[in-house]
């Protein structure tokens, strides 16, 4: 049935001074939130438009793909442990790194962040009953799932999966250089998941602009929601360009166009044919998507960290408005830096892209210092989500510094397409998507399932991952500076690179072991649950006000929303969040009403 929703708060307050209740549906009495709505079982999964069900589907699919892609990486590292390993053929290795990159970037990091966690959490954080377009939301998930299957089908066709790298540079990705169905499946997988992302972006922007609860002004939204809004806008900027580029590449491959290929350019009376294609065009289009894409991947996880750090420091976010403006600045700058991936073509305007790339360090640095400021003078408890967030800080710090080095074209000339770059992007991506993402998993798992994950297993996961992370990627910086290129299935044995590669492989297996602990944690916490309650972490934002898991349409009661920490204000009237500009310390107002505006 369709639920026509009236917002919470249309009745008088009860004697318990609880916030007013929500009347659900069309005049029904309020429920305790446990009523079954609609179909159950497999049919529920196929037809549900509830953002929580969809978000969970996304997250489970994404984590499964993460494990599959991780196993691919393990094979790659095994191959590189010795210089001329015969574990994999060159063709298999090339397919593995293409698919590892494609799976992680298109099918795990993005969908987990904006399709999974944001889908689940953003409506809760703004006090909405669901996303703005529930059926579009469900369509996004099905396009994501089918897109993932499409990409993975590449392994099962003759000729194997795509082997041209996740960036699919033309003309290597043309039909003559990469024939077969595997590359086509890769490209079509990108197209399907691209549409999935675009629809999710529409949903995010619509929900955040239109479905906020009364009192939840834009500057009272949690930073995670702000980041998801900016991510949604970046998605709308970037993904259509990618989809168009991929469609054109498909046309080049199958319909005889010469958009990206310069082959077959014939001299006509000594002059080149005007219709010669340009491989540079693919690079420009792809990276115009590609660079905002990495910020689409990073910003949600920045948001997660900004949720976790205040809770476990028992302080508000430091510099809330600075965080918001820094996020906007990062998004704005990220659309202007795409050609820093093309410095070595010799065909791009070096100083323009260099200065903008260097400038991105400024808002990122602002966020960093705000995170530190959040913890300053706090009372830190090192729960698993907090550990992962701090691990993110360390990982991203070094990844960011090496990124600044790469933003300088002469340095980039020296290390482009070497393992230095591989180490850099793994540091930033693993730092954000893995450390930040699993911080989110451990943080919000109690809200989603009503039970706690085991802290001891979580700590094993963190420490093994943290140690394995540094052991894997630090040697890669060194060997990249020595000149080892990326995307190579073998390397000369007389250059002294083997010891670094061997250490890196050992690190990769340590990381793999850490993820075994996560699986065990999931199983144990399900079999022997520890009930979580509504707010096990004494957290601040609105989603912790409702039950765990939240009821259908999310809220039966809502507190008054007078700051960016409505749940905290309700639970701690002696330490209210004071609006920006009104002083730094609490003054003990009991009813949460603040008269002046920002």
């Amino acid at each position, binding site marked *: 049935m369709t639920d026509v929703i009236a917002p919470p708060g249309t009745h008088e307050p009860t004697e318990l001074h609880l916030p007013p209740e929500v009347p659900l549906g069309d005049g029904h009495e309020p429920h305790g939130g446990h009523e079954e709505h609609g179909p159950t079982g497999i049919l529920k999964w196929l037809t549900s438009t509830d953002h929580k069900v969809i978000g969970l589907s996304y997250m489970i699919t994404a984590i499964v793909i993460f494990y599959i892609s991780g196993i691919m990486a393990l094979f790659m590292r095994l191959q590189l442990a010795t210089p001329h390993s015969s574990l994999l053929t060159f063709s298999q290795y090339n397919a593995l790194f293409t698919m590892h990159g494609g799976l992680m970037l298109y099918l795990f990091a993005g969908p987990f962040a904006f399709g999974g966690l944001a889908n689940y959490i953003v409506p809760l954080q703004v006090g909405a009953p669901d996303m703005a377009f529930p059926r579009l939301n469900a369509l996004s998930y099905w396009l994501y799932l089918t897109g993932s299957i499409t990409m993975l089908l590449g392994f099962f066709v003759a000729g194997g999966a795509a082997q041209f790298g996740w960036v699919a540079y033309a003309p*290597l990705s043309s039909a003559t250089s990469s024939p077969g169905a595997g590359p086509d499946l890769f490209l079509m997988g990108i197209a399907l998941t691209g549409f999935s992302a675009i629809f999710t972006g529409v949903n995010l922007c619509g929900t955040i602009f239109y479905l906020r609860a009364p009192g939840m002004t834009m500057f009272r939204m949690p930073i995670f929601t702000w980041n998801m809004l900016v991510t949604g806008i970046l998605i709308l900027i970037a993904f259509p360009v990618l989809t168009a580029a991929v469609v054109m590449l498909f046309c080049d491959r199958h319909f005889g166009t010469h958009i990206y290929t310069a082959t077959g350019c014939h001299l006509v009376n000594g002059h080149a044919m005007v219709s*010669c294609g340009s491989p540079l065009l693919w690079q420009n289009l792809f990276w115009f998507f590609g660079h905002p894409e990495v910020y689409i991947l990073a910003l949600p996880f920045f948001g997660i960290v900004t949720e976790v750090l205040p809770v476990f420091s028992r302080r508000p976010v430091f510099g809330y408005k600075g965080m918001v403006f820094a996020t906007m600045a990062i998004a704005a700058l990220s659309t202007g830096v795409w050609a820093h991936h093309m410095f070595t073509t010799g065909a791009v305007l070096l100083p323009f892209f260099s200065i903008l790339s260097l400038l991105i360090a400024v808002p990122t640095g602002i966020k960093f210092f705000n995170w530190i400021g959040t*913890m300053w003078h706090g009372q830190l408890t090192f729960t698993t989500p907090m550990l992962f967030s701090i691990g993110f800080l360390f990982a991203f710090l070094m990844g960011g510094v090496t990124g600044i080095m790469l933003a300088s074209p002469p*340095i980039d000339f020296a290390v482009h397409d070497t393992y230095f770059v591989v180490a850099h992007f793994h540091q930033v991506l693993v730092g954000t998507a893995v450390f930040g993402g699993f911080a989110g998993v451990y943080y919000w798992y109690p809200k989603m399932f009503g039970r706690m994950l085991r802290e001891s297993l979580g700590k094993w996961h963190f420490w093994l991952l943290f140690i394995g992370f540094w052991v894997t990627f630090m040697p890669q910086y060194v060997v990249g500076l020595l000149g080892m*290129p990326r995307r190579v299935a073998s390397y000369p044995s007389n250059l002294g690179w083997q010891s670094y590669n061997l250490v890196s492989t050992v690190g990769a297996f340590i990381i793999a072991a850490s993820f075994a602990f996560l699986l065990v944690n999931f199983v144990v916490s399900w079999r022997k649950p520890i009930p979580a309650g509504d707010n096990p972490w004494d957290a601040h934002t609105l989603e912790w006000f409702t039950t765990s898991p939240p009821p259908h349409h999310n809220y039966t009661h809502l507190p008054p929303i007078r700051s960016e920490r409505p749940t905290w204000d309700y639970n701690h009237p002696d330490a209210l969040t004071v609006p920006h500009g009104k002083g730094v310390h609490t003054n003990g107002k009991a009813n949460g009403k603040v008269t002046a505006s920002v």
Partner: protein
Amino acid sequence: MALGALLLTGCQLPTFGAYKGATSQARSTFHLWQGFFIAGIIVGGFTLLLITWVIFRYRRRSDEMPRQTQYHTVTEIFYTVVPILIVIGLFVATVLVENTVTAVEPNPAAKIDVYAFQWGWEFSYPNGVKVIGQTTDAPTMMVPTGQTVRITLRSYDVLHGFYVPEFNFSRYASPGYYTEFDFNVLHDGVYRGQCTQLCGLYHSLMFFNVRSVSPSAYRTWLRVTGAYQRTHPNSIGQLPADLHANINGTVPSYSGNSGNSGNSGSGNTGNTGGALSGD
């Protein structure tokens, strides 16, 4: 500026893992790297210390409610402005080195056309000498030490990367346009190179060498090899028979066509990319 002073004293600093550089351009890049690395240590180290300090100092000691400070405008302005200044400094240093590295001078002593293909290299000299090698049969490019060498880089088929680690330099070879760069090798020696942009199945094996000898030895080599190749055309290495594509629509012929070597493929300069490469 402090950064400039640091760059000037660069020769006494550690290399931080990079090559000092075998060409004059590479030396500039190396000093820039040292400057960036030091800036990275300072800024990164400072932030690292802050994080570590916070983790240890502010562990939970009691149930006392901590100060709920939400902002501090002066501090926030400080850590906005200071990074901007650092970035501007890094950018200025970058532009100075970048102009040195990408500069092409009007009259180089040696001009070599480099063609990349799947999976090897062709080095083509102005007097008709060609050096061609595939995968592990790596071709060696002879260059004169101490003089400017101009490379014009193209690809016959897909993107490749011309990368010499000890030159601290790489550039893409692309079909459809050519790109040019200069280098001045400082000392005699053999420097290994490798393709650095994924180009298909045997990308890992696309090796080459750059061998730098004295200018007189270079001229001798050029003359002798040119004469030998004219009388023994079969001694020139072979391009692969199934070379996928080429720039001007015909299979490049190299036997006895010494006059063509400078022209093949130069008719199609593609887009403005070629013009920008000389910035």
